[in-house]
């Protein structure tokens, strides 16, 4: 082997991904693969919702859990992904598969200047400003009716091209959960890396210190904005898939309510744990569906009457008994068992 070939091979070997795939992720993949065999279309549609919210929530875990920047405005990037993807396909006729990465990239590009402006602020003010940006986005989408369809939104958005060997819902289910598992692996890798340590070091909510981070050579603003962009890209991907799954999008789907709900999912699951995003979104989406379908029959009243109360009760109970989220439950049980042994 010539030295040039040897050098090229050595360089290439340094670029080989070595994914850290936790055993639980493999179990999750197996469960996901098997679910369409046993679940009906309704269950799959609920699980698609869980997966899409989990992807947005994973971005928030990186942004809030790791970097300590509270965002109540992820709906902006969820919506950007959905509208950009839908408009690209409707207006230019490109394939939804091409629109998906373009929409995600647009969400990331939009996040860069917004993040740079917002993340100079500190603490809870960041949450307030991101919420305000979400409100502005909502009214902008409603106002630009010539482009976005205004309050009624866009319809007849083409589906993702798919092999006709399975129903479309089943196909989207696989796509969504493949994306969710990929985002989970990326998040776990980031959290355990130099970048993850830099993000944790600027997390003032979790015990970080910007002064210390800076004297250790960490460009605080660079890493905060990077986390904001990654979270936006995750949300943009979810938005694009959502648009091509439902074929109809309207501004309310991307409102502050959605952003707050995603934040609640992250808190419930465990703000510092990417797995918490899946657990939290499963709980909230599952609870919402249960209350929508079962509660009106059992308790009476209109559909959706109990949702806010239920979210509140679950949130308060979790914060009281498991402040680190549901993902901390196994550790708490282990602590309790050890305590009993002593």
């Amino acid at each position, binding site marked *: 082997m010539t030295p040039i070939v040897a050098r090229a091979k050595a360089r290439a070997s340094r*670029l080989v991904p070595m994914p850290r795939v936790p055993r639980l992720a493999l179990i999750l993949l197996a469960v996901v693969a098997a679910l369409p065999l046993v679940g009906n279309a309704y269950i799959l549609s609920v699980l698609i919702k869980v997966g899409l919210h989990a992807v947005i929530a994973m971005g928030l875990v990186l942004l809030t859990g790791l970097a300590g920047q509270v965002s109540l405005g992820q709906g902006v990037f969820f919506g950007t992904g959905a509208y950009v993807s839908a408009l690209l396909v409707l207006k230019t006729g490109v394939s939804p598969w091409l629109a998906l990465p373009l929409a995600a990239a647009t969400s990331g590009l939009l996040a860069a200047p917004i993040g740079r402006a917002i993340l100079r602020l500190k603490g809870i003010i960041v949450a307030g400003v991101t919420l305000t940006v979400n409100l502005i986005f909502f009214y902008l989408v409603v106002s630009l009716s010539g482009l976005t369809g205004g309050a009624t939104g866009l319809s007849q958005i083409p589906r993702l091209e798919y092999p006709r060997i399975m129903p479309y819902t089943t196909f989207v289910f696989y796509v969504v959960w493949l994306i969710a598992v990929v985002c989970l692996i990326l998040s776990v890798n*980031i959290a355990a890396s*130099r*970048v993850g340590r830099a993000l*944790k070091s600027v997390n003032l909510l*979790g015990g970080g*210190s910007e002064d210390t981070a800076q004297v*250790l*050579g960490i460009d605080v603003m660079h890493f905060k904005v990077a986390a904001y962009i990654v979270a936006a890209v995750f949300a943009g991907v979810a938005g694009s898939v959502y648009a091509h799954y439902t074929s109809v999008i309207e501004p309310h789907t991307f409102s502050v309510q959605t952003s707050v709900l995603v934040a609640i999912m992250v808190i419930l699951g465990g703000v510092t744990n990417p797995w918490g995003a899946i657990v939290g979104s499963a709980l909230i989406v599952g609870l919402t569906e249960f209350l929508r379908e079962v509660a009106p029959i059992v308790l009476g009243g209109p559909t959706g009457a109990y949702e806010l109360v239920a979210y509140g009760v679950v949130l308060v109970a979790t914060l009281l008994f498991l402040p680190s989220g549901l993902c901390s439950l196994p550790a708490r049980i282990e602590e309790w068992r050890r305590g009993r042994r002593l």
Partner: protein
Amino acid sequence: MSSRTAMRSATSVSRGGHGPLVEYSGVSVSYGELVAVNNVSFSVERGEILCIIGPNGAGKTTLLRMTSGLLRPTGGQIWFEGLRIDTMPAHRIAALGATQLFQDIQLFDNMSVLDNVMTGAHVWSDGGLIGSSLRLAAIVDEERRIRRAAVEQLSLVGLTGVLHEFPAALSWGERKLVGLARALLCRPTLLLLDEPYGGLDTEEIDRLSRMLRTLKSEGMTILMVEHLTDVVMDVADRVVVLHYGEMLAEGTPDTIREDERVIATYLGD
């Protein structure tokens, strides 16, 4: 491997060069009417331990914060390695080879001891977002190197068996050592220490003094603010005395000990 050789491999690299490592030229900083540091000029020579002493409010910590880039002077210039740094952001100054250990240590409470120390390698490692998220082979190799260096650094400061503890579980002395290990993993040319002896017992003080002497012998330059005058006179090559933001005296410990102005305003009889 002897501790000295190990210290050399894991910590400082003297970058050579000529002239002073740091130069303060007419440096001032004021907060409205209050002048915290007023027209201070001195230099820090390569490979020396220079201690800044003075009463509370003398401007000692302010001077350190200006050197590390956390505070901008309102007048004058600061030069480090021949580069003007008073307008540079702190992370760029760290990249040039200066890092600071704060008086209250400021360990990251959301990270284990090992991760805290590994953060010190940020300045000389380069794993980016994409490589880290894909866990490229090069990134995995680099992480292994950083982990090895961090473990080695912790053992050099005498801390083993606490790698996976969180800072809240450590004693004050242990926290100081973790902070020092983290700062040293930056492989700095200039180490800025803000009251490193505060809260340590006699044994820990002796141990820290030995460590600082070893680092100096390896070529590291140390600029330190300290209140314990006995320790200062023991470890420092030179001493600068500040008083209400102005420079009162500068010289070797023996000169300072006999300086009448210093005795009258700070040391006493």
